């Protein structure tokens, strides 16, 4: 469902955590690599969208967030 606007920042945090837990996303700690971080996160979003058969856009859109918020198993979907 559509995200209530003020939730957007929270949702970005939530998505990061989700991708770390289930898609082996590792956030760069130093701010030097912010742009690389963003690209890395976009790639991981694409990977998750592809796994769930969503439209692969790399964007953190509603459908992608909806899917992330569903109750699920704690085991990663992909592993390094």
């Amino acid at each position, binding site marked *: *469902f*559509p995200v*209530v606007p003020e939730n957007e920042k929270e949702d970005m945090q939530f998505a990061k955590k989700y991708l770390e*837990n*289930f898609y082996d996303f590792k956030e760069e700690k130093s701010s030097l690599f912010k742009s690389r971080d963003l690209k890395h996160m976009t790639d991981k979003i694409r990977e998750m969208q592809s*796994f*769930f*058969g969503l439209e692969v856009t790399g964007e953190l859109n*509603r459908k992608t967030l*909806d*899917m992330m*918020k*569903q*109750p*699920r*198993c*704690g*085991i*990663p*979907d992909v*592993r390094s």
Partner: protein
Amino acid sequence: YSTFPYNPRWKKEDVTYRILNYTPDMLQEDVEEAIAKAFQLWSSVTPLRFTRLYNGQADIMISFAAGFHGDFYSFDGPGGTLAHAYPPGNGIGGDAHFDEDENWTKFTTYNGYNLFLVAAHELGHSLGLGHSNVFGALMYPIYMARDTRNYRLTQDDIDGIQALYGSPRESPALPTKAYPPQEPTEMTPTEVPTEMSPREEPTEMTPSKTPIRPNDCDPDLTFDAITTLRGETLFFKGSYVWRKSPYFSEIEHDTISSFWPSLAAGFDAAYEVDKKDRVLFFKDNQYWAVSGYSIESGFPKLIQNLGFPPSVGKIDAAVHDQNTKTTYFFVGNKYWSFNENTQSMERGYPRKIAADFQGIGHTVDAALQKNGLFYFFHGSNQYEVDIKNKKLIRVMKSNSWFNC
């Protein structure tokens, strides 16, 4: 399907398990039965045999815990992660952990997560399976409530587990995928009580025939209930949802259980109180409140809680007027007006629908407010009404919203 890196599996056919503790949400016997049946699913399609131990170290140790519980993967409170399990191996290998902050149940219709379904998934991991991206497979990562009486592994699940362990030795006495087996087969866990009668009386094994979704542009299409939700419009019929959103052009087809797994299908009515980001669903004499995906605690409630007399057993339709903050409930040829601010029925109701809603001389199946106008659905027609000016504007087919 998928397996873990390097395909860890048990290098034997006799695998042991032990239930270390219980959830207070369920009777112990229901926990034991759910777990035994979950093992049975996997033993019925492999040569594996599962034996329950009551002390000491078993291959698969099963426990309930909340938050941090001694491994690197703390649980996250209600919702989100429900459980996790480790691939075959020594020590923690094979163990399955269930989040005690969830509400565990043996049902699939009320609030909570069905322990049998989640245990069957987690034990798939304990045996070496990873996640599947096949929607509907048991090893699909997202929880989906479904009827457990005749639960069947999908072919994807069977292909995955048989890639690790092969198929059963002798042909099982039952169809390989039936669940629950009508009588113990060779593969049942040896500790399962001899009396194998399933908790719910076995019904006739007729495959459940779920009615197919009607075509969007079927001229005879009717709806049970309709509501807005955060700018979108949801149309309900049986277990199906048609979702119309300003954010994407096509109509999305979903099921009620994909949004609210613990709500039963077949709503009578639904409406949104947009200022509270809250949607209420009605079925028979009960109603639930949801905000997005989450069902508010303390539901279902009886509709008499809203002020209906005991003589009203169910409502036909409901719609909230965002301008006046009142909600109209339609029952037979009458309607009530409910004040959302005072949370009480307004005086002088019920009144006849025909007296106040121009052109609506019959019962109302569903109702909707969109762009200030009201839409009353009756069978395969809908009536567009301007209630401020008490004017019936036009009559259309109920599915005119689907760009037919």
